[in-house]
């Protein structure tokens, strides 16, 4: 019988908790935990960001996040996977997304985490709006990444 790694996906307005995610992943009692955090970058080229804000097609985003976690679980030897995305305003240096993978050995943790953030950016229906220091505001996403 194939073991299916426990998966937790969530979308919330509140700040994301690294502690909570770590605790969930640590329960796997594996040898490695890899967590990627996507944060609001302050400087991009010559533009200064004041904050980002995110909007989600909630029901579909949760299903897509779970689908990606299921795929990662079948491609790599993972014990637990957690994907958390924040909506609403995300100030500079705050995390908009946390992706965590617990594994027996470290290699698959890095690989699965990389896969999950790359795929999230392509297929999960969430949009970011960039609010710049000069007052200008832009929705990001001119073209599909795939």
């Amino acid at each position, binding site marked *: 019988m194939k073991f299916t790694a426990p998966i937790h996906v969530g979308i919330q307005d509140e700040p994301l908790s690294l502690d909570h995610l770590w605790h969930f992943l640590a329960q796997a009692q594996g040898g490695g935990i890899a967590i990627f955090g*996507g944060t609001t970058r302050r400087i991009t080229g010559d533009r200064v960001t004041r904050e980002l804000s*995110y*909007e*989600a*097609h909630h*029901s*579909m*985003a949760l*299903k897509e996040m779970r689908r990606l976690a299921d795929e990662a679980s079948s491609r790599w030897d993972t014990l637990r996977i957690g994907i958390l*995305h924040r909506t609403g305003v995300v100030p500079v240096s705050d995390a*908009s*997304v946390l992706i965590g993978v617990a594994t027996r050995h470290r290699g698959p943790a890095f690989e699965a985490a990389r896969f999950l*953030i790359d795929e*999230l*950016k*392509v*297929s*999960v*229906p*969430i*949009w*970011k*709006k960039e609010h710049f220091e000069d007052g200008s505001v832009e*929705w*990001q*996403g*001119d*073209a*599909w*990444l795939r």
Partner: protein
Amino acid sequence: MTVTIRVFASLREEIGRSTWQETLAEGSDSDALLAALSARHESISRLRPSIRLAINDQWASAAVRLSDGDEVALLTPVSGG
């Protein structure tokens, strides 16, 4: 038949609402729906090359037959994470 339309982000801001009902002929497909919406909304017409559809929370390919009660989301390029 009646389907529910949902829009988000820039498209939601341009149209001024996030969801509404559309009445379609029985047997209509998603291409026909998109054509009807493009004719009525300049923003949908303009953004049409980059709009992808999701039907009942799943990505949809072209010309999917619709059913009464379907929820069709018009999605512009995503930018999560």
